[in-house]
């Protein structure tokens, strides 16, 4: 199938998944928040649905990648990967959301906070790639 059509179809699946979680459970599919609050959550039922979401995400997503023959790695080296991971973790916790919470769900709710967040992280990501690829000649 055409690669743009697949991108659109995958996007619609992501949107439907977020819509289902809101319609049935009243919850926002914000992946960063779901993951961090998994680690420390005293209330059992709050913890359990987050675990179920992550198990579904990793189980089905990982399987889909294998079926589709996807295994492309990031061009970043080990040290860059670890630094990038720390920044993504710290930043999404501080900014209360990532591409799913602010991007897919926040924009869907017409949230001004989310719109500002999306514009901000898109901008710094584009600048970072520009510096890495065109100014420093770095690995990414």
């Amino acid at each position, binding site marked *: 199938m055409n690669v743009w059509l697949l991108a659109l179809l995958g996007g619609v699946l992501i949107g439907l998944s977020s*819509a289902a979680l809101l319609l049935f459970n*009243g919850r926002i599919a914000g992946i960063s928040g779901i993951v961090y609050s998994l680690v420390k959550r005293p209330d059992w039922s709050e913890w359990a649905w987050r675990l179920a*979401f992550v198990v579904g*995400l990793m*189980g089905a997503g990982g399987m889909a990648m294998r079926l589709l023959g996807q295994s492309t790695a990031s061009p970043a080296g080990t040290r860059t*990967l670890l630094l990038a991971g*720390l920044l993504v973790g710290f930043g999404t916790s501080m900014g209360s959301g990532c591409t799913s919470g602010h991007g897919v769900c926040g924009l869907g709710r017409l949230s001004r906070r989310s719109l500002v967040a999306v514009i901000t992280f898109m901008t710094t990501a584009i600048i970072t790639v520009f510096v890495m690829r065109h100014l420093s000649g770095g690995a990414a």
Partner: protein
Amino acid sequence: MIRLLVALLSGAMFGVGLAVSQMTDPTVVLGFLDMFGQFNPALAFVLGGAVGTTTTAFHFILRRSKPVFADQFQTPTACTVDRPLLLGAAIFGVGWGLAGYCPGPALVGAAGGVGTAMMFLPAMVAGGLLHRIGRNALANRH
């Protein structure tokens, strides 16, 4: 129990969506972010499909008095643009641009056995917890 099943299936659909749309491939993501180089518009189609769907669906869903299997909608209540939002989003963007992974694709990539995602994921969780521990420590001091 039914809510756990919904969460499981919703997570599964999200994961399949990420894989089908190739967001689990960091080179595709970095290709989109490389606006001034070999630009690859795929991510715009993914975000367009996802946000088009949620904007339409949420409009109708949030008109309901409550969700199907819960007592109330639990959507974020904060509405002011503050410094943590801006600074956090800016820091996230830098990390995203360095590796091409945001949280969802990092989880799926690690489950799919991609080495770079498996390396990125623990660092990401550590970063998120580091912020939460720091924030709680600061809050307790006041």
